[in-house]
């Protein structure tokens, strides 16, 4: 037993150096240096992107993965001593909050400005979107005629009574969707809409987006509000049951006659006190480059922000769609209002 403890202690000491311990590690290399990324993205493929960045630039990537809220709290507490160079989140709302908390700094990059459409980045360069996720309506191929679907707003119609599936309101994707409805209408309308949707719920919200698609397969409801890339993940899942469930549904991009389908993003900004600001900028430009954009959309089924990036087959099959070009920072500003409406109408 003693020898086991000793062995472990040695292994730990060898393996777990603190952040200050490895700053000099790569200094011998040509371009060298490092970049510390605080990220909410925990996709397996992201590590490969970090590796590719290391290979092509010689800049070592330190990664801290956690929930964006925890990362923001951590950056607030660390203040000017924070080792973070880049903050990556899976929604626009949290980037806006980080910006409001003064955790980000503006970056001037002609490359980023030319690649990324203007509604998908902060006008002053505080943050940039790198992938898009459309929040759309998935419907049962068997039980729903696509021409019955039109807009998010129409989901409160009586015909959808007891048929709508959606996850809990604690998730940012739903909060952003409601924020977009507040932005396009107003608070009162948004409350009525949320109220009407709760009336039409097939069941109390629970589970993830993919669980809503499974619930369609299980005949618990007929339409579900989900993000496109979850359907992509299910269709490519190792679990045959997930593939089966995903094949029972079809995607519908709502509001195509009007403002377009609601789109949220995964994005990143450079930290206010970034010790390696130049490396951070290089890293963001790397993320926007065509090969990485193609990698992101083929591995995670998100839509690329780089218009030159080739879409994978599955995304092509979903077809082009009109997206809501609402300035994303509005989503962040209206987030709290959206959450309060959810609480008032009892959307769990």
């Amino acid at each position, binding site marked *: 037993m003693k020898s086991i403890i000793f062995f472990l202690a040695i292994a730990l000491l060898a393996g777990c150096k603190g952040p200050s311990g490895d700053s000099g590690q790569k200094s011998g290399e040509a371009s060298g240096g490092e970049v510390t990324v605080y990220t909410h993205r925990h996709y397996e493929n992201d590590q490969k992107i970090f590796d590719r960045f290391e290979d092509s630039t010689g800049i070592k990537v330190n990664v801290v993965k*956690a929930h964006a809220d925890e990362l923001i709290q951590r950056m607030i507490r660390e203040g000017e001593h924070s080792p973070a160079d880049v903050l990556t989140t899976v929604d626009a709302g949290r980037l806006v909050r980080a910006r409001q908390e003064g955790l980000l700094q503006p970056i001037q990059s002609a490359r980023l400005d030319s690649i990324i459409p203007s509604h998908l980045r902060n006008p002053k360069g505080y943050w940039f979107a790198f992938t898009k996720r459309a929040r759309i309506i998935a419907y049962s191929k068997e039980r729903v005629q696509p021409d019955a679907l039109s807009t998010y707003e129409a989901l409160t119609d009586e015909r959808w009574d007891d048929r709508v599936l959606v996850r809990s309101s604690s998730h940012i994707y739903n909060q952003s969707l409601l924020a977009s409805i507040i932005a396009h209408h107003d608070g009162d309308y948004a409350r009525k809409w949320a109220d009407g949707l709760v009336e039409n719920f097939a069941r109390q919200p629970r589970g993830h987006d993919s669980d809503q698609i499974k619930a369609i397969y299980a005949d618990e409801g007929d339409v579900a509000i989900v993000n496109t890339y979850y359907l992509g993940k299910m269709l490519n899942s190792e679990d045959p049951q997930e593939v089966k469930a995903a094949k029972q549904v079809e995607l519908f991009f709502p509001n195509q006659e009007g403002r377009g389908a609601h789109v949220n993003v995964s994005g990143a900004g450079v930290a206010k006190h970034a010790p390696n600001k130049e490396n951070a900028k290089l890293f963001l430009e790397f993320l926007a480059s065509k090969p990485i954009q193609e990698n992101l959309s083929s591995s995670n089924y998100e839509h690329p922000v780089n218009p030159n990036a080739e879409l994978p087959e599955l995304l092509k099959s979903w077809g082009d769609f009109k997206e809501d070009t609402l300035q994303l920072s509005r989503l962040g500003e209206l987030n709290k209002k959206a959450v309060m409406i959810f609480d008032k109408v009892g959307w769990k």
Partner: protein
Amino acid sequence: MTGKWGVGKLFRRFRRDFSSWSAWTLLLGMIIGIPVFTIAVSLFNGPGQMWGHVTQHLLDDYLINTIFLIIGCSLLTLLFGVSSAWFVSEYDFPGRRHLEWILILPLAIPAYITAYAYKGLFGYLGSIPILSRQAGIPFQGIDLMNLPGLVFVLSLALYPYVYVSTRVAFLRQAGRLKEVSLLMGLKPHQYFFRVALPLARPAIAAGLMLVLMEVLNDYGAAHYYGVNTFTTGIFRSWFSLEDPQTAIYLSAILVTIIFALLWAEKWQRRKKSYSLTAQFSTGNHRIRARGKTKAGIAGIVLIPVLFGFILPLGQLIYWGVITWTRVLDAQFFQMVLHSFGIALISALVTTLAALMLVYMPSWNRLQGIKPFARSATMGYAIPGAIIAIGILIPTLAADKFLIDFMNEYFSINTGLIINGTIAVLVYAYMVRFLTVAYNPVEAASLKIGKHLPESSRLLGSSRPGTLRKIELPLLKTGLVSAVALVFVDVLKELPMTLILKPYQVNTLAVKAYGYASDEMVAEAALPSLCIIVTCAIFIWYLNKLTGT
């Protein structure tokens, strides 16, 4: 107690009773209390602006669901935990020796993973409905994603806390008591209800306290099943409503509930003494079960094992088999090593602190020192994420001071020294899991009683000497349980680890959570299985150790 006289008397009493042991106890308690103190101080900033919104629309739901969870999980974990502990310590039946430790294994599965596994087992697309449909039975699955389902799943994941402490109590009950009871004409079941159960009450209550604290701390399972509890409410107010103050107020209510429960547990124990002198112990003679009884007992004991371990494990193995090629890489081994090492170090440190907190207060006569020591274990009642913030605030302040100091006097920019080290993480685990170690150690020390150590003291041995030579060997089972329980808890812990872990360290729980929260539940199986296998080996080893 007013005026000069009261204060003077108090002070004189303090001077008389204060010893170096009091100082050590107070110091240890204060070190442990830093995060809680930090949070408590921030209560004085007043409730946040969202407080009115929360009380108007959400608080009722939180209260009702939380009370339902407390009652439901208490009943179910007592049912599973006490019954299995009784049968394995009083009866002999085929497979008993293995079941003794297999019954602890559900603890190896993080509650939220059990919750995911149950969705995978009993949902419409779950393994069991599909298998039965293939077999021609039209079983549509069970909808577990609701409040009763959450009670069921949490109880299956947590009943071992009751089982472990109750079994220790039953095994240590004097054999002669049983002989006398049976000679007096009590039937075995009467002996159970009239003698064994009341005597085991402190241990059962201690186990139940752990269960309830875990229940009230659970975030992952409740969130996934769509049940609003205080803990999900804390996250909602903090992160969705952007109001940390309201979150801190909600945690204050949660802590009040926990304290009420702790007080109730103390009250039911009152001043009764449950210690039995060793001379009456003649070892335990198990009843050899036969025929129908044998099958019945084996069946009852197998229920929690089947539902709490074998079924979820089967689902995880299935997921693991279909995803392992995607998940397994060179980093995996390193991750296992990190997780295991951190957990072991934290478990040893925490158990040592618990031992000190159990014994040092009894070595001095200072008034109120025992409740003080007990209150140092309250970290378990507070959600991990909040403790992490409670640790970040003071340690970052200390770091800032050190950075400024080094800059000014030595012109060296040191960066953050304290934060992002293993030490902070281990400290956080100690604060959070002290109760887990404290309860079995305390229960074991109550079992030893006062006579042996008193004799040792009369013969001239010092207090630490007595502890080392007399009590420590007798405490072995309690200490080993403490280490095992903290180890398993640390290996599973998530929110604190996410916030406080060093950059290079990746733990299995963090990895599993990453997959699960990204809706790749099947991929979460392999790291989960590693947690389970590691814990299983550990528990098996400890069981062997205590058995001899």
